């Protein structure tokens, strides 16, 4: 039987002059471009405004090399959690247990490494294994038993907090050996020298910018070959230059502090990997399909249970990664570790444009959402704002961000 539309080669064989086309083709009407990316660009603009706001209020201290390094070290584990959380939320679920899981995985690692003198990597592997097991537990109840994730992970929040207390015997453990501490507090620097700055950090920054430019150009060429709209070439160059400038500024500041934080590398790998996973893989697309319309996904042949199960296993894994980073950062394990982390991660995902009803959200958005929270907390701390005020401000920002999103959607929907 013949297919009505065989998914074979492009209708028009690509001509040899495609890269040349890449220099000229495209639209640069800023209005269409901005309207197309309103949700995403809105959040970037918000981040820039908030960064500028606190830079002004703190006389530039918030943008000093030392402080930028601090923000990365202090909030990396929230960002790691937010990656997993946004995927859970896209699938139409929620995970309230991640704070407890951070505590439990850190505790297991601490017991092995501090109490039982195991090597640091045994602690890391054990923590990851516990995280995967926790994820599988949640996944089983959500996907196969059909219990709403809110209930399952609410139970998990209590359950794993209790297990943490049991594992730690109600006491804190510290300190970790130096190798373990390096995970969250270590830097890669001095590898290729530099006078008063770290050349290696700058090199990595340059490599990242180059990779961004090359990938961007290749995507552009491919899109033109498939006759899809692209931005005009000058606009493309401007975009790459802007991103490059921001990244190099960031690298420059890091290079003048203590070099490239190891957690930043971990985070970058995760963001890149999960960004691709959500956008480019069958699995990622099925998560969106399930969150967008569950029965329709089911009737399209999506194995809903399998996908949901792995979404939670993955959340457990990332909670364990965050647990390792947090225990390393705090140089020990405490019974109350990770308290309320789930709320920060959930807030990051929603500020980053995820929808409460599922089916909408991006990893990059969640990262920007997390950074907005991070820059705000950090800025307010630098200014010596009272803890109570900080909490009020963060709460209001979450509310306003989601309200803005809902308002935008309603306005778009009114066209129907």
């Amino acid at each position, binding site marked *: 039987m013949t297919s009505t539309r065989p998914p074979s080669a492009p209708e028009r064989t690509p001509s040899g002059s495609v890269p040349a086309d890449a220099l000229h083709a495209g639209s640069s009407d800023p209005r269409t471009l901005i309207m197309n990316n309103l949700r995403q660009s809105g959040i970037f603009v918000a981040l820039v405004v908030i960064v500028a706001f606190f830079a002004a209020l703190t006389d530039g201290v918030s943008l000093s090399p030392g402080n930028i390094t601090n923000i990365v070290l202090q909030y990396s584990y929230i960002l790691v959690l937010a990656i997993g959380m946004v995927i859970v939320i896209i699938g139409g679920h929620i995970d309230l247990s991640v704070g407890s899981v951070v505590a439990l995985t850190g505790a297991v690692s601490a017991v092995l490494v501090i109490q039982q003198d195991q090597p640091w990597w045994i602690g890391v592997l054990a923590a990851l294994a516990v995280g995967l097991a926790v994820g599988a537990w949640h996944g089983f109840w959500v996907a196969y038993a059909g219990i709403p994730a809110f209930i399952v992970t609410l139970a998990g929040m209590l359950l794993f907090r209790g297990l943490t207390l049991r594992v730690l015997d109600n006491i804190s453990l510290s300190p970790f050996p130096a190798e373990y501490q390096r995970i969250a507090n270590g830097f890669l620097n001095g590898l290729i020298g530099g006078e008063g700055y770290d050349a290696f950090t700058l090199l990595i920054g340059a490599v990242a910018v180059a990779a961004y430019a090359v990938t961007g150009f290749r995507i552009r060429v491919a899109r033109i070959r498939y006759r899809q709209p692209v931005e005009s070439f000058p606009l493309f160059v401007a975009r790459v230059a802007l991103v490059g400038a921001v990244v190099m500024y960031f690298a420059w500041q890091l290079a003048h502090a203590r070099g490239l934080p190891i957690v930043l590398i971990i985070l970058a790998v995760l963001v890149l990997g999960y960004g691709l996973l959500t956008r480019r893989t*069958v699995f990622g697309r099925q998560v969106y399909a399930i969150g967008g319309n569950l029965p329709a996904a089911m009737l399209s042949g999506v194995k809903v249970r399998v996908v949901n199960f792995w979404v939670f296993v993955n959340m457990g894994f990332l909670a364990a990664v965050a647990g390792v980073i947090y225990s390393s950062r705090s140089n020990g394990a405490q019974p109350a570790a990770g308290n309320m982390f789930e709320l920060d991660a959930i807030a990051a995902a929603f500020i980053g444009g995820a929808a409460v009803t599922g089916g909408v959200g991006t990893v990059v958005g969640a990262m920007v959402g997390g950074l907005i929270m991070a820059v705000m907390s950090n800025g307010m701390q630098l200014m010596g704002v009272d803890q109570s005020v900080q909490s009020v401000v963060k709460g209001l920002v979450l509310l306003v961000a989601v309200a803005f999103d809902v308002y935008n959607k309603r306005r778009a929907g009114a066209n129907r």
Partner: protein
Amino acid sequence: MADNILEMRSITKTFPGVAALSDVSLAVARGQIHAICGENGAGKSTLMKVLSGVYPAGSYGGEIVFDGEPVHFRGIRDSEARGVVIIHQELALVPQLSIAENIFLGNERRGAGGLIDWNRTNAEAATLLESVGLRENPVTPIVQLGVGKQQLVEIAKALSKRVRLLILDEPTAALNDVDSAHLLELLRRLREQGITCILISHKLNEITAIADSITVLRDGRTVERLDTGSGEVTQERIIRGMVGRDLDSFYPSRLPSPGEEVLRIEDWTVRHPNRDRTVVDRASLHVRAGEVVGIAGLMGAGRTELAMSVFGRSYGRDITGRLYLRGREIRARTVAEAISHGIAYATEDRKRFGLNLIDDVRRNISAAGLRKLARLGWVHGNEEIKVAEASRRDLDIRAPSVMAVVGKLSGGNQQKVVLSKWLFTDPDVLILDEPTRGIDVGAKYEIYTIVNRLVAEGKAIVLISSELPELLGMCDRIYTLSGGRITGELPVGEATQEKLMALMAKDRETAR
């Protein structure tokens, strides 16, 4: 000038970038049934939203005169206070609440101390149910009623508000012929009681049968007003006004050329997922390549249940029976297995079960066949766009681009996206469940043309429809289903609406 209960003059309503209504006028005479016709997107629903205050006064231009005085409704409550009640296509009943609770929702019958007076509530509900001819206990939860009966509850609810102008938006779209006839009879009775009615419907046979006058809209403008009293208003006449041209025929012609048998279902039995009831009872049927086989049945006959249970057991439990694909027995225990065997099922409820409305055309089209676009789990994004573009061209999906959000397309175009999705899986058997429900005449014709093209390519098509003329016009062979049993099989040459109706109503009680 006749005694008009409602006059809408020069109504203009614009949304950012588009004029949904421009200078539309509507005059409805007291005590008449007035039909509004137009293709999807012609502005019918927008006009009714203006009338009922969903779009508040001030957000549109023009003037509304109700019962001789200008009105400015700021919301549904305003319009309902004057006795203008709208019943939407998607019924707005709360499934878990009882009939009586739904009827008086927001309008509760209270007794001493503001508490709900249940005796009065249920007694008044019983009276209202009687007046709409629905024999059900008022305390029955809505979930236990079929769509037809739910529609009657909606009308009872409207009557409870002392309705003077009742607006029905596609009331029979989800109903089978018997329930539809019942509903139309009720509308006639209401007319005798002096209730004026505005009827929006795509079913032109109903309109010509019941309406006293007709306003035709096209592209947000009033095209013409027809009075059926003269007897010269035919369906063809209305269609000409709606589409601005003549349609040669409702159903495009096709030369039947059935080939070998593709799918055979034997002794298929399905139980209701959570009630003790057999919904499909030892059904057997087959379909050949290049053949359109129809399934006719009343609401609740088990048509959708049969189709979905065959499609990877997506409905029901304790499913027994055998499936043969080209003579070989197959198992299709999951939807994914069914798809890989070349079976596709396009659902009757595209919004709830067929589409991810918040996502774009492209990803909806690729949803069921995504693995064909992927290598080692990685989706080839550009190839996907190309596939979507090809579908958009082939099926003439009218969307600004394949990146357009599906929820914003018209019903007909959404249905084409659903079809595209299944065609991309390259099925041998395509089960179409009510493929033209709620879409306009022009789009229906296009869907029929697509079906004919697929048949010509050798696909086997199973067509489930509540509209008998559609089955008679499109199928080569028609099975009738009643109470979960196959009660007849007729070649289209021998089938008539009367014969089909008799078979569809046969043996209904004993089969339960």
